[in-house]
């Protein structure tokens, strides 16, 4: 067995799906190859570490998170329906422009692939698979740490969220749930900041706005207002106006809301 072959079988080795003969052959290679042996032990430790992460039991939070996502969708849907029904892509001129654009992109890709053909050689599938695996692993780490009993561990989970893909809806959902339901003020604060990683998603602004109307801890309210200003979300104005005029709200929060209104105009 060559080192190349060994590398392709490492995952099967760790997950014990090589079969008896395969495993014997693999072990024989390990015995003769120092490089592979050290790699197997190094990455293997990480692999087993993942095993040790506690299984995520569907808790009450999953339900909360689901209804939060649903709420955000409904709000989004309502906002979309409120706009004029005519979508830009239904206008013939735009359709023709889009078609022309697609042809140009297609030609570009064609040239690119032909030009770099040998460089790509067989790798893309594996690279993208690897990238996906890494993304899944980060998601897993972030999600499971955010379920831990210790606030320090949940804070670590929130900082792992910065390493998730900006399109990762699972992690976004977990952050929104932490902002709304985590028992610890500091974890809620950190989760609000981490939402910036997902600022490209329209759900982020909606979730922040929804949370601002529910949140009662002043320092978290301040963090949410900062986030809404950074997202430049014009839909935040009515809620900010309500908050700045709310006599029962914390004085600092009211000042901050007033400040944010000026920034958003």
């Amino acid at each position, binding site marked *: 067995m060559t080192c190349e072959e060994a590398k392709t079988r490492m995952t099967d080795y760790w997950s014990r799906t090589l079969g008896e003969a395969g495993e014997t052959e693999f072990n024989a290679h390990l015995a003769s190859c120092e490089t592979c042996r050290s790699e197997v032990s190094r990455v293997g430790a990480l692999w087993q570490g993942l095993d040790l992460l506690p299984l995520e039991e569907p808790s009450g939070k999953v339900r909360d998170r689901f209804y939060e996502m649903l709420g955000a969708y409904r709000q989004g849907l309502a906002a979309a329906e409120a706009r004029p029904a005519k979508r830009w892509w239904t206008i013939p001129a735009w359709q023709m422009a889009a078609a022309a654009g697609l042809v140009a992109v297609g030609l570009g890709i064609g040239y690119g692939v032909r030009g770099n053909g040998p460089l790509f050689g067989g790798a893309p599938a594996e690279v993208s698979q690897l990238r996906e695996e890494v993304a899944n692993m980060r998601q897993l780490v972030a999600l499971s740490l955010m379920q831990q009993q210790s606030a320090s561990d949940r804070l670590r989970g929130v900082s792992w969220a910065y390493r998730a893909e900006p399109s990762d809806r699972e992690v976004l959902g977990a952050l929104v749930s932490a902002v709304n339901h985590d028992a610890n003020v500091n974890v809620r604060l950190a989760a609000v*900041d981490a939402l910036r990683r997902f600022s490209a998603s329209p759900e982020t602004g909606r979730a922040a706005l929804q949370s601002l109307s529910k949140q009662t801890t002043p320092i978290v309210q301040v963090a949410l207002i900062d986030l809404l200003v950074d997202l430049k979300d014009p839909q935040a104005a009515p809620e900010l106006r309500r908050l700045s005029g709310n006599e029962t709200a914390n004085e*600092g929060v009211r000042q901050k809301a007033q400040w944010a209104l000026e920034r958003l105009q």
Partner: protein
Amino acid sequence: MNRFLMGGMIVGMIAALGALPAPAQNPVQNPLQNPAENQNSAQITVAFSNPSQPRRLVVKTLMHKVTIKGYDGKDAIIESSAISERRRRERNIPPGMHPLNVGRGGIEVTEANNVVTVSAETPLGGGDIQIQVPVETSVTVNTINNGVSVENISGEIEVESVNGGVSVTNSSGSVVATSMNGKVTVVLDKVAPGKAMSFSSMNGTIDVTLPADIKANLKMKVDNGDVYTDFDVKVTNEAFDTTESKTGKGVRIRGNRTTYGTINGGGPEMQFTTFNGRILIHKK
């Protein structure tokens, strides 16, 4: 001569009395109480069920000032005037009956799976709750109207108060602390490697002392205050207004809103947040 003898006898008798052990009190027999409780009327002693495993203390109260100290022992010792209050109520229960609308009153102490929980969530009363636990115990405290002080503890420490100040001193491990209107004071002799920490207050100052060799990524957010430190902090977000000016012996970092920086090359995340207070980060 006779008088001298008499005097000597009296002195001897007093000495003998002093040397006598204090008369043993009869433990109050009450089915509602933990059998491990101490006989002292204002004190409860609870054993952790598995001393070799990690211990945890959870305290929830509305009105009490909470003081927790690590000591060289293996039980949790809880002292409070709320305990005698509870005992008094329990003594008043007529034989064979149980309370219906009396409210629990006082304080409740339970132990399960190595977690000792002390809760006094009635809005009645106030005063202090003093708790001693083994030094290596993780501690979680929530209070509303009074302060929290944690001393000489090694573990994961989580403290929260609304109107009181919170302080963690002489401790090690990791701290997550918040107070809405009070000051947050933390002095750590040693930090647990790889642990994230966070300190926040709406109206109070954040005053944190860390070991000189700590490796950390700092995130410092102030709205109406400033950040001061005598650590050599490498500020990493140059995009913000971070004009530095020397004042006295410490370097003053003036951030626009959030300042990011690293100490000793960086490490786990440490977050400092205050709206009206200032942030002080001392080197121990």
